[in-house]
């Protein structure tokens, strides 16, 4: 059972990195306090992972045939990659880290299933596009509804506060449901854990990451990409949550970072491209490209130096 420690470490890293995508905009716009944000994230991540987490579990384990020790090394390499990127405040993707690591191990053992990889990569490409589409549509749709039904400043103030809170809870639920497979999916594939146990352990580890180490990335996501007002913050979180939930139903774990950046870009398109910070987008794109390769190479190195 000690082999799941690296998965717990990866879950902690994911929680620290991706909790920013849920309440980052809410915290930086001052609507939600940081403590409230991380507490709600932890609770709803756990609920999401236990209720719907099993939907994405199989695909990660099926990428390569792993023995338990390889699963341990894959999770370790992915976790180290994620921690380094988190340290440099780059919103990175755990999905890409773990898939890069599993494929790296699969290449060494000759068991890598590239047909499944194509489906996953297609979903990676579609994730930011989904975020952009949801962001754009929700912006126009909700704006129309709010303008028609809630003209009062006081009510709108309350709606934004409650809306961002509820959208954040839904986002945390979707994160848990979709991303728990990144953390413990490989242990299901290697036969070390059952789906339910993997979902529970993964959910707990993500929650612990959110509770202990999420502040730096939270501020990067909230402030660095585009200036957000309460309405766009609400739209962004809701678009991200919907994107993640959609891919959960498809059964592929995707990046919440890609979803949230897509959503911010979608909202940015409504306001004109000038509201986007290209430097920050380049930094994120570099992180996305580096993540799978770094995790894959690190896994190969670990397996290579590991005594037989």
């Amino acid at each position, binding site marked *: 059972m000690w082999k799941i420690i690296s998965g717990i470490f990866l879950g902690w890293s994911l929680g620290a990195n991706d909790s920013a995508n849920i309440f980052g905009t809410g915290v930086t716009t001052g609507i939600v306090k940081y403590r409230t944000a991380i507490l709600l994230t932890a609770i709803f991540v756990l609920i999401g992972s236990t209720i719907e987490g099993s939907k994405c579990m199989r695909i990660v384990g099926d990428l390569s045939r792993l023995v338990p020790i390889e699963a341990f090394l894959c999770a370790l390499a992915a976790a180290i990659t994620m921690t380094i990127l988190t340290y440099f405040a780059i919103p990175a993707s755990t999905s890409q880290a773990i898939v890069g690591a599993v494929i790296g191990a699969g290449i060494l053992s000759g068991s890598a299933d590239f047909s499944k990889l194509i489906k996953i990569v297609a979903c990676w490409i579609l994730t930011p596009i989904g975020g952009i589409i949801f962001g754009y549509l929700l912006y126009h749709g909700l704006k129309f509804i709010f303008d028609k039904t809630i*003209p*009062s*400043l*006081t009510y709108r*103030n*309350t709606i934004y*506060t409650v809306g961002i809170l509820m959208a954040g809870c839904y986002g945390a639920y979707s994160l848990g449901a979709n991303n728990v497979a990144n953390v413990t999916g490989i242990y299901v594939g290697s036969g070390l854990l059952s789906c339910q146990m993997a979902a529970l352990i993964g959910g707990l580890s993500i929650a612990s990451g959110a509770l202990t180490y999420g502040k730096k990335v939270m501020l990067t996501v909230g402030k660095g990409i585009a200036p957000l*007002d*309460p*309405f766009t913050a609400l739209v962004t979180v809701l678009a991200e949550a919907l994107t993640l939930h959609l891919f959960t139903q498809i059964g592929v774990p995707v990046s919440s970072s890609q979803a949230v950046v897509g959503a911010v870009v979608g909202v940015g398109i409504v306001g004109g491209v000038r509201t986007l910070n290209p430097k920050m987008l380049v930094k994120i794109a570099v992180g996305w490209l580096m993540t799978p390769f770094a995790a894959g190479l690190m896994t190969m190195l670990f397996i290579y130096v590991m005594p037989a």
Partner: protein
Amino acid sequence: MFLEKIFSKGKKENQVIGHITKQIKLLCTAFGFFKTALETDNPSLMQQVMDIERAADTIRRDIISRIYEGAFLPYLRPDLCKFVEVVDNIFDLLEDTAYRYLDLKLPEQLRSECIQVAFLNRRISEMLLITFESMIKGEDLREKILAIRIYEKKIDDIKFDLIRDARKIEITNFWDGEILSQFLSCLTSISDVIEDASDYLQVIHLSMK
């Protein structure tokens, strides 16, 4: 904290709105007193304008503290506070004008134009109240803000006539001339500050859309 916010149905926000409404209504009253004091050359009514300014100052402090105790989204608070401060600047300017008036003997050839400006100041402050109430209801502000700009333009036109007429008055003492000049300057610049206040209302309105 959040449950409190949901179930209070915006109690704190409504208190702040109530106080700001009271502040602007006091402004209208002060302008009314000022105009009557000019018409009747009544120093005790001018004194009332200063008393109202002190009352409004207390309301301003109360509003600011309520806002920072948690009323409204943090995103909105700086603009709301700025609006309240600008309204307070209008009170300060009106008080300065009242002080100058008590210090001088207003030449009769300027009185009717000064009364006209005072009347327009009263109307523009009433329009500010209407604009604020419309903003709270989420109504369109364009026409109201346009009306404020038109009033401001009218006051600007009178200002030039006033300056022209004032130059015809023979000044025998430097300080009499200085105080008259300051009085006219304060009286005619109040509308500019009211226009600034209306601009803040527009900013708040747009930022919540």
